[in-house]
């Protein structure tokens, strides 16, 4: 058995022409950490749906070796081997022999550190604005060897953002979670998109939980509900007296167009721009 292994090893090394040591390249990730990867990476594992989406967006889908069970976009991502959900199964990860693991560090700090501890290069992408998403696309393109497609993807996004950008108009409240009540302030990519679409956020800061009375007190002109929780909204305190309700300016929108830092955010941006432009009926 051991002899066989030796033979295979010799065959393996002989078949490589001399001097074709795998090329490595180094890239700075969103943490500012310099990550060195064999280039182009061929066995990429993504531990976050948004990272998966960015990889596919730049055309690196074929290099993706593993994803999480939550990675449902684009549809091709669902066919990839799964390395777990929120919890990464390290045995499955090892079996995939990844040469690069991609995540958003702040969302998976513990898992990221554990994977790095096992010796795999971890590259972090992070977005707080539309600008960040655009530069993430370019970074992922360079990282995976798909600069051209990444550039055209980024350019499309830039053009779509530019086409709708307008001055702040009506005030709005964006709700992505009902239990607990959660909103996205201007310091998030979602908030950034909504601001560019011409809305004035009634909340500041980043992703945050809120008390319903704050919505009542700020009485927005428009309410965007981006979750599909079945709820009798009439039961909410003071609902029928909110300006947005009186003027029929409550919109139920698709969560996936708003809450991911990926090119899909442009769909939300354009929809929100249409909503903000409409006059009260």
């Amino acid at each position, binding site marked *: 058995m051991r002899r066989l292994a030796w033979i295979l090893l010799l065959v393996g090394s002989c078949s490589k022409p001399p001097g074709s040591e795998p090329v490595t390249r180094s890239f700075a990730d969103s943490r500012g950490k310099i990550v060195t990867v064999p280039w182009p990476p061929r066995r990429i594992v993504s531990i976050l749906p948004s990272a998966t989406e960015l990889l596919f967006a730049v055309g690196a889908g074929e290099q993706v070796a593993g994803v999480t069970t939550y990675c449902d976009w684009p549809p091709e991502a669902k066919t990839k081997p799964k390395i777990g959900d929120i919890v990464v199964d390290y045995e499955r990860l090892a079996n995939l022999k990844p040469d690069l693991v991609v995540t958003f560090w702040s969302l998976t700090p513990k898992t990221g550190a554990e994977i790095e501890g096992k010796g795999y290069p971890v590259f972090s992408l992070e977005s707080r604005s539309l600008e960040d998403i655009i530069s993430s696309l370019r970074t992922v393109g360079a990282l995976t060897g798909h600069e051209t497609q990444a550039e055209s993807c980024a350019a499309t996004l830039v053009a779509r953002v530019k086409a709708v950008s307008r001055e702040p108009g009506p005030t709005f409240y964006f709700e992505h979670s009902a239990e607990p009540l959660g909103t996205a302030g201007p310091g998030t990519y979602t908030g950034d998109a909504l601001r560019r679409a011409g809305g004035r956020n009634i909340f500041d800061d980043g992703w945050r*939980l809120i008390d319903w009375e704050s919505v009542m007190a700020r009485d927005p002109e428009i309410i965007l509900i981006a979750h599909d929780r079945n709820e009798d909204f009439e039961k909410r*305190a003071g609902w029928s007296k909110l300006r947005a309700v009186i003027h029929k300016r409550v919109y139920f929108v698709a969560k996936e167009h708003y809450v991911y830092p990926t090119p899909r955010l442009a769909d939300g941006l354009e929809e929100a721009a249409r909503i903000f432009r409409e006059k009260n009926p």
Partner: protein
Amino acid sequence: MKRIPSGPALLVLILVAAGAVGLSVLAGPTSAGNLTRDIVLQYRLPRGILAFLVGASLGASGACFQGLFRNPLADPFVVGVSSGAALGAVASIVLGFETLIFGLAPATAAAFAGALGASFLAYGIARVRGRVPVTTLLLAGSAIGSFAGAMVSILILINTPRWSEVVTWLMGSMSHPDPWSRVLVVVPCLIVSLGVMAVYARDLNLLLLGEESARQLGAETERLKIFLLGAGALAAAGAVATCGMIGFVGLIVPNVARRLVGPDHRTLLPITVLSGGILLTLADVAARLASPQFPLPIGAVTALAGAPFFVYILRQRSAKM
């Protein structure tokens, strides 16, 4: 310890309760200048009332169970009520049930069913030849609790896109956009369970002498157990189903009240109900004052205050032994 006369104590507590709910109207993220009538009447007032009713329910349930089990460490959650409720709520969230049941959110309805289901299951398990030894009931409840707790863990691992909803529920929350409709869920549970407890208050006192003595003194102990178990579970279910898991109120309050007014359930129960309500209302006010912008989970606040007290009671009891 010198006992406080119960009549004046009740009067004082009613006034304090009104004060606590009043205080609750003053606390919140909105500055006084921006307060509207609707915020006060539709949100803050019912929120204060809800906190009071939930605290009162947990206190009543705790006093009832501590009397029934003759164990000062029993709380509303002993007979599997909390874990049953948690299993119901988490299952409905994780499995994505979306249908409103009698106008209730699916998690509320499922928590309710889980809480009552678990306590009746505990009763069924503990019942042997028409009798239910309270120790067996306690142990059966604890076994069901462990089982349901394990199911909750598994459910969370299977699928949790709604992770934050699960966590919010497990930590207990008073921050809901629809406080009046939650008040309407708690009120009937509390009224029915308090009614039952009031009827059996004298029998609860007899139980303090031991089951055998209580029977000899004319208490129908087996029927008593069904009604008191049901009443305690119903009160806790109403509280847990609307506001999630809020620990320690049901444990602390009856113990403190017993030290102050003595073990007679005819005075202990009303005192506990009022103090439980006051405690949770004030805890909610404190949580909102401490963090006006970011809603704190009330369950964490009460556990933070409750855990040291739990240790204190344990120390007191072991010192006496």
